[in-house]
């Protein structure tokens, strides 16, 4: 099971500034390990962010995203107490969902 994401949401008025860090190797399939063998493709393909159960932000991405991906996005109309959940899924079928509660002035 993958490690938890680090999610941070900062409220500025009614806009939540969201930053998320995902722990993932994001292997391109082009890199060789110490023994000189190609490391197989292993990367996050889809990301979905939901605010109180409604999808606000989603993404399909390639292996060109850096290792341990960081994304930031902004959601208007968010308020303290709202639940923000983020899910990713990779090409090997692994997935992970984490949720935070948006706090006032945090």
């Amino acid at each position, binding site marked *: 099971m993958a490690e938890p994401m680090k999610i941070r949401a900062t409220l500025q008025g009614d806009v939540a500034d969201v930053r998320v860090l995902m722990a993932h190797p994001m292997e*391109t399939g082009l890199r060789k390990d110490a023994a000189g063998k190609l490391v197989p493709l292993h990367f996050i393909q889809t990301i979905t962010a939901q*605010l109180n159960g409604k*999808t606000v932000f989603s993404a399909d991405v390639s*292996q060109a*995203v850096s*290792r341990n991906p960081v994304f930031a996005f902004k959601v*208007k109309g*968010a308020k303290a107490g709202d639940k923000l959940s983020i899910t990713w899924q990779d090409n090997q079928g692994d997935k992970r969902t984490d949720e935070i509660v948006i706090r006032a002035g945090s």
Partner: protein
Amino acid sequence: MQHARRLIVQALGALVVLGPARALAAWNKGAFEAKSAIDAMRALGIGNTEDSKEIQIRAPEIAENGAVVPIDITSNIPGTTSISVFIEKNPFPYTGTFDFSQGAVPYVHLRVKMGESSPVRVVVAAGGKHYTTAQEVKVTIGGCGG
């Protein structure tokens, strides 16, 4: 008639892919495996694009480390529904599409790997049209191999 019906089915298919229901749509393998930005755009159904100054790309002019190139993209085009990123000289240029709905602001920050210096092209979908702009990023050490 048959042909017309097929067109309608294709059009509906395109709506499913491009609409807010993307989370349910399949990851576009054809586009992600395309070796040129043009082929990737074709696979995504992006036809004509219009150059726009309303798209801001904030990326380093010179990236010392191609393994982590931070990019901030903001679209000021009203009705923006998605932002797609193409790193033209990467082995597989199509890097991803970000969809905005239910009040999400058309802004995204991401960090990408770049094999060599390349234009970073952004295509914004808004009101059924596609707008584009690009910025050159010079890479001193590539980030794709080992």
